[in-house]
């Protein structure tokens, strides 16, 4: 299945940012868009991106496997990444991590049985003043995540997930 028209349009926009003949520079953007469309980057998706950018598939794989926010295995609909680095740890991230694991009944790197959430431990997101900091699907930064905030976010995302499922 080829990448969607809207994903290709976004990739074209990224390619236009770089000098002629430097399409490869758009690979990070292209992988991001492809992951946004498909949830994760399968070997097929990597090949499609490689073809689109006229790159050797191994060069695309090198990039996808190097940067921590690309997923080379299936993940839940929402990937929740909690920063547990030192500044956040000093400001309640450990407690937020325990609460997330207990509430979702999964450990780091695991996905809930219903496939809605994957929980990851992250490194510095550059927002330590608002710890604990959590990223939802790598794009939405959620700050000061105490248990009530975490509960509210989980409810909201579950509702969104159910709506999307009905839509599909």
């Amino acid at each position, binding site marked *: 299945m080829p990448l969607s028209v809207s994903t290709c349009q976004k990739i074209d926009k990224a390619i236009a*940012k*770089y*000098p002629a003949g*430097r*399409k*490869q*520079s*758009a*690979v*990070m*953007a292209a*992988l*991001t868009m492809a992951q946004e469309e498909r949830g994760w980057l399968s070997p097929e998706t990597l090949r499609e991106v490689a073809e689109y*950018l006229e*790159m050797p598939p191994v*060069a695309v794989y*090198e*990039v996808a496997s*190097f*940067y*921590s*926010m*690309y997923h080379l295995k299936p993940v839940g609909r929402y990937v929740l990444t909690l920063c*547990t*680095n*030192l*500044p956040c*740890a*000093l*400001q309640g991230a450990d407690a937020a991590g325990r609460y997330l694991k207990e509430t979702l009944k999964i450990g780091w790197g695991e996905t809930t049985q219903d496939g809605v959430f994957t929980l990851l431990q*992250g*490194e*510095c*997101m*550059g*927002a*330590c*003043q608002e*710890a604990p900091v959590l*990223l939802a699907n*790598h*794009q*939405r*930064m959620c700050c000061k995540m105490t248990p009530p905030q975490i509960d509210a976010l989980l409810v909201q995302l579950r509702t969104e997930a159910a709506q999307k499922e009905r839509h599909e």
Partner: protein
Amino acid sequence: MSAYLDFGPDAVLLAGLTGDNWRLKDYVARGGYSALKKILNERILPEQVLGEIKLSSLRGRGGAGFPTGLKWSFMPRNAPEKYVICNADEGEPGTFKDRDLLRFNPHAVIEGMIIAAYVMGCARGYNYIHGEIWEVYERCEEAVDEARAAGFLGSRILGSDFSFELFNHHGFGAYICGEETALLESIEGKKGQSRYKPPFPANVGLYGKPTTVNNVETFACVPLIVNNGGQWFLDLGRPNAGGTKIFSISGDVERPGNYELRLGTPFAKLLEMAGGVRGGRKLKAVIPGGSSSPVVPGAIMMETDLDYDSVAKAGSMLGSGAVIVMDETRCMVRCLERLSEFYHDESCGQCTPCREGTGWLSRIMHRIEHGEGRPGDIEALDRVAGDIMGRTICAMGDAAAMPVRSFVKHFRSEFEYHIEHRRCQVADHV
């Protein structure tokens, strides 16, 4: 109208910001783009602008503190293709100032980059933005579009002969891309692994062309220097350290946040602005310049001023201005364990001493913290850290080793206690 955000009374970079007034029209209302207009309308020569930057004693705000004017002067004059790049890959634990600059005042950074491009003769630039702050990347995309629509970017800017194009590029989760040559590799669409220096980017940079990479805050200082003069900026700080500096203070304080201070302000003043140590507890230790800088005992830090030379004299580095505060209840073994795990995670794997050494450090720290430390582990930590330092292509090896050596040096008894008693010393007392 929203209230002004409080970054302290000395703020010039972050003055007048509400969180909502980030758009081009707001920036222009604050006097924005007047520096660029002045240069182009009065036909001020690149060398004259460079002279003011040198006079200002502006030093790189990303961590290394290299004099900005000198860095710009390394760029060859007549190369046909040159690049200016903003390093907004802010991922040093404890640092969160560039995020605020870019989300609250993106046009100051854009104007600074345009002026830098004018001085160095670059026709194209990129802003490399930390992947984790996606919303800020999207805002920067909007801001660049605004600047282009207003004629501040593009060909023949404001009717002059000067043309410059600027684009945003996002990272996607790799601390190492904050290192300038890894960042260049990343823009080229490769793994972010550092390059050997020399050749330096000023000679062989992006796509092999002369390139200058500066930090977000460094660029944001440039329009202020052009408008007010290098001497004005120098006078805000200290000799050899001109201007204000944004300090990101986090950890055990009442009000973590960004505070903009004149360079040379005492640390005690910053701590006071942040509301003091949380819960009125005692200060134990401070990491003054981001997680890579050596830790300093609280008592020494309380006597230290915040400028490059003073913090160096206290045995550490001003770095990026990321101040991590730890109170008396904190176990230094646990703190170092967390940092060691981070560096192991983020080593790009290119150089053996860093790839393997950070793993050893992390594993030794893990076992000490979890009551499985062995006699000789402290010496091993010091030896491994020493074997990494100076033996890697980029500074990430030193960044991983320096915290280890300083934690062991200043808090050795806590490490010894952990190994001997298989538990934490701090918990006994507090």
